[in-house]
């Protein structure tokens, strides 16, 4: 284990700038560095360590792959520019993609050369994703798509999109959805960026589809099997979610810890958040232990709610305590704003609580 970690550490020392730690807050937003880092990770097998070398990995067993990711989090490595391409799209392509699709898309996707949008939310289908209404009708020339997506992260900079569309309007709502791979340069697509409340919120867009023709071989997974693709591709994220939240906790609390002391009446709040931080890591490890030993693993169900809520409280405490009431607080405010996105995207905290109650505790479907 330590052999592979040392190899990874040496790689990081080689590719990260010498002053990376000192100037972390600048490098965090350095698009050039982040892009180059992802490509280097792919080329040297550190991008998805459990995958084979041709897909940017080292073919590592899960625990070792995880140790690499945890080390990356400790070193606060640069974030990939278009995180969903590595975390959501590539795993879906591996599971559901045809050999031709894998050949065409995987390499540029993983290397960060081509970005992806996740075409999921619609104006009337947010938390209730399965009620989506964008349609695709199969005609001679392929699928003809009409409808609208919204809150589509980075759609304006994406090359492709995994677009969830209704292909069977008669079927029960979960069973009439398909996933199409759509070229974002196709005629009939209009993308309107939405101005975000602050610079730390990843750009999102409205996307309109007006008789957009998508070749029939662009179907990802089975026809009307889109719900399965959506659920399975989010599964892969489970370890990324807790490792990322653990790293975000460390980052959020850093300005507070750097103060050296906090008012006595806030020390309990700080201690509780440090407890959250450790518990995020340990719960993640328990989950991995369950999977490694082939035990049932209900823990991923709580990780998103637990981690994202904790980060939000931590960022708010940092703004409360480390803020001086002067313009230098802007960064703390922006980070607090950023933390507010994570309890909304990828399933709101309210939906997460429903899921925990229904699937883990066995309570009836709510109303």
């Amino acid at each position: 284990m330590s052999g592979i970690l040392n190899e990874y550490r040496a790689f990081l020392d080689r590719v990260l700038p010498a002053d990376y730690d000192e100037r972390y807050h600048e490098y965090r937003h350095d698009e050039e560095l982040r892009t180059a880092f992802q490509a280097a990770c792919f080329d040297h097998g550190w991008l998805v360590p459990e995958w084979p070398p041709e897909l940017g990995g080292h073919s590592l067993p899960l625990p070792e792959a995880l140790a690499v990711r945890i080390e990356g989090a400790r070193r606060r490595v640069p974030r990939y520019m278009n995180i969903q391409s590595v975390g959501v799209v590539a795993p879906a392509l591996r599971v559901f993609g045809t050999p031709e699709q894998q050949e065409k898309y995987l390499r540029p996707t993983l290397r960060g050369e081509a970005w992806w949008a996740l075409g999921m939310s619609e104006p009337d289908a947010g938390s209730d994703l399965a009620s989506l209404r964008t349609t695709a009708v199969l005609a001679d020339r392929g699928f003809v798509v009409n409808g609208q997506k919204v809150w589509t992260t980075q759609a304006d900079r994406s090359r492709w999109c995994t677009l969830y569309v209704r292909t069977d309007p008669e079927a029960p709502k979960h069973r009439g959805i398909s996933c199409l791979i759509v070229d974002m340069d196709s005629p009939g697509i209009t993308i309107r960026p939405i101005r975000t409340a602050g610079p730390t919120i990843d750009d999102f867009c409205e996307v309109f589809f007006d008789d957009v023709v998508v070749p029939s071989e662009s179907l990802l997974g089975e026809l009307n099997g889109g719900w399965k693709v959506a659920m399975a591709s989010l599964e892969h994220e489970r370890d990324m979610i807790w490792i990322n939240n653990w790293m975000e906790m460390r980052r959020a609390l850093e300005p507070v810890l750097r103060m050296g002391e906090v008012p006595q009446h806030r020390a309990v709040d700080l201690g509780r958040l440090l407890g959250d931080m450790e518990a995020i890591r340990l719960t993640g490890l328990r989950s991995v232990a369950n999977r490694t030993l082939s035990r049932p693993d209900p823990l991923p169900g709580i990780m998103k709610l637990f981690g994202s809520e904790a980060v939000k409280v931590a960022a708010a405490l940092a703004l409360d305590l480390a803020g001086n009431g002067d313009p230098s607080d802007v960064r703390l405010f922006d980070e607090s704003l950023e933390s507010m996105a994570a309890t909304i995207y990828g399933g709101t905290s309210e939906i997460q609580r429903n899921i925990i109650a229904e699937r883990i505790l066995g309570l009836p479907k709510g109303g």
Partner: protein
Amino acid sequence: MSEGVTTASSGVDGVAWEHLIPGDEVREFAATVRARLTSHHPTTALLRLTEGAEPTLEGWDDLVALGILSIGLPEELDGLGTLADLAIVTEEVGRSLVPLPVTTTAAAVHTLIRAGLEPDPTAPTALAVDGGARPLRIFDGLFAGTVVLVSSDGDGTMIRHLAVADRTTPSSQIDATRPTVTIEPGDVVAEVRVGATFDEVLGPARVVVAADLVGVADLALEMTVAHALDRHQFGRPIGSFQGVMHQLADAHVALERARSLVRGAASALVTGPDAHETVRLTLLAKAAASEVAVSATALRTQLLGAMGLTFESDNHLSLRRARATAPFLGKAADLYARVAALYLEDRE
């Protein structure tokens, strides 16, 4: 459980899998403990104690024979397994609300071991923090033949193992199954000053008590979910209302949070008892477990409605257990504040 095993055979980030989730042997043992404790100490017996029935040590020898108190002891004391195994089994002790000083004796025994003193794991033993106040109030000390007193002593810590010469038991108790008594200390069995800090010495004891409290919360949540499925209002189970569902979901997260900290702390005590982060994890484990025991039993009380406030309901037994045990070896807020101070010291 194999004897004296401390291997970290496989795992990640310094934590062994078998510390985080119980192996087959430990799971089987925990199931045996659960069955034994539930059948020997039914709710009716616990309610009689609350009404003033004379507590007895009945069942103690059984539990000693079963080996609960041997878990995590060193080999020369015929120990089995690790402190991580003890944490998992102690959850069962907590769940059962057993009216015997198992958890507190384990806490005292592991404090003696931490201090390098020899325990008698077959004899009820109490543990207390000695802040200098007299008379000495001892939690769960009704049957203790001896008491382990821990006090800060400059940079180090003083551990004194004393006989109990005399004891007074106030008739009014929050938790009659773990009464707080006043004692007159007798002969010194052993005493030692160690260089380890007060929090380092109390680490194993805090993890044991925390595991007990996780068990209390686990039982409360399980019973509350069962009630939410069973109880119908407006023509549907109350557990189908989001106002109820979301509270139970949050309670579940809090429970797993505490359980992860307890197991992580126990693992740290096995693999690196003197490591920098170990003491923090033990403080956090106890803080989180104290909090969730109190909050989960309070949530159960709310969701049971008026029924939860009756004597016949076993609910108040859990509530009493949580409230009486939670402050033992440090209240949640104080422990959290202590952890904050330790992290802040690092950055100065």
